[in-house]
């Protein structure tokens, strides 16, 4: 059975997702990968140093939102977006706990996460979902709207605001910390 979720996601929606669920996601997602994460953390840490609210330093309010780890190809004429499959998530691990503490609820990527990320996910009741790596043209068809929201100078690594419809995903780590990568291959 496929579960449907919409973003921004309520805590109740998140808590119903379990590792191993197949999901179709509809709603808003922000893109962000290596360079955007690095910059967001610089902003957060600068704000903290100055005794300011870190949430206000970011170009996006992460509360109950989802970040999709992708760096899309340029959109050809007449297309909403170029191919946009997931990139490998572990490179974002060192930046992730602080974003979760600011209210980030959904991360979409591929591959393993660190114990620190999983701990922060449990603490903040967040989920990690994976999209099929390398199915990037197929995934682009689920994107109904795309605009650059911040960090335009980063090119493919800029933060986009996407509106997606029925994006097929698998819940790999749920808000209890149950991890499909650890349970599934041994079965």
């Amino acid at each position: 059975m496929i579960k449907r979720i919409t973003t921004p996601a309520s805590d109740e929606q998140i808590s119903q997702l379990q590792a191993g669920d197949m999901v179709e996601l509809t709603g808003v997602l922000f893109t962000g990968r290596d360079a955007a994460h690095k910059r967001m953390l610089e902003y957060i840490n600068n704000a903290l140093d100055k005794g300011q609210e870190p949430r206000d330093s970011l170009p996006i309010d992460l509360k109950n939102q989802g970040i999709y780890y992708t760096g899309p190809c340029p959109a050809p004429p007449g297309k909403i977006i170029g191919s946009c499959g997931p990139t490998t998530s572990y490179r974002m691990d060192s930046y992730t706990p602080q974003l979760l503490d600011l209210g980030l609820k959904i991360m979409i990527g591929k591959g393993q996460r660190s114990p620190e990320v999983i701990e922060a996910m449990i603490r903040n009741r967040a989920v990690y979902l994976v999209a099929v790596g390398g199915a990037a043209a197929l995934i682009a068809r689920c994107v109904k709207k795309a605009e650059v929201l911040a960090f335009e100078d980063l090119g493919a690594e800029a933060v986009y605001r996407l509106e997606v419809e029925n994006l097929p995903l698998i819940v790999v780590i749920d808000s209890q910390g149950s991890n499909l990568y650890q349970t599934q291959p041994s079965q």
Partner: protein
Amino acid sequence: MREIDTAVIVETIEKLCMQACYQLGDDVKQLLKQAREREESPFGSWILQQILDNIDVSREQQLPLCQDTGMAVVFIELGQDVHITGGSLTEAVNEGVRRGYQKGYLRNSVLTPLERKNTGDNTPAVLHLELTDGDRMKITVAPKGFGSENMSRLIMLRPSDGIEGVKKFVLDTVLQAGANPCPPVILGIGIGGTMEKAAYLAKKALLREAGRPNPDPQLAELEQELLQKINAAGIGPQGLGGGTTALAVHIDTFPTHLAGLPVAVNVQCHVARHAQAVL
């Protein structure tokens, strides 16, 4: 002396960049279809079907198979009776890549390693030039994504580690990589030579028709043994369990020094892109 003008080389590389990124080879597609028929894991077979659907959408819509359109690795086998006219070969290769990535709406992923400043046009390409007999020029463009490149490894084994040491290193590499390189993968393995020769052999082994065994029966047997062991480990498509972790294992060897046993494993995701032309 046969003359080849750099303008022709630029045009050829431009086309090959786009072709490689939109059209997966039938050899890989065939292996994926066979894997989907065999795959028992429900996640695994669903994922393999998504991958196969993606190949069709990509070809029909001229959209890149993967958003990571890679760093352009260009192999040129240059006949020694060819004379290149009209400018520098290296510049022609880079110009071809520049144009191909721009016209094809492919992603510019190349940047300076420490400052992380994007070069803006996906150049420079990594150019491997080999001098061969004859008066032809064979160009292969193999855009390499870094999800799988990052999981590649090289080791200088001791001679006493022998073939068992090689097998262990290959298996460890795949197990450690898990879901990260987007399995099912194809492995290019270089054994012997020097450090850089092993890495080059591994990369070049990925250009072989997927699943075609090494002509040396002993190496072909080693390829099969490794393929079976890797698939028995159960990592499966995208690391979510199943019998399809690798589609093929390609090994190439070269004589090495009596004190060493270099082994390089170049991991390639299922988007195993390469396009070729002969001038």
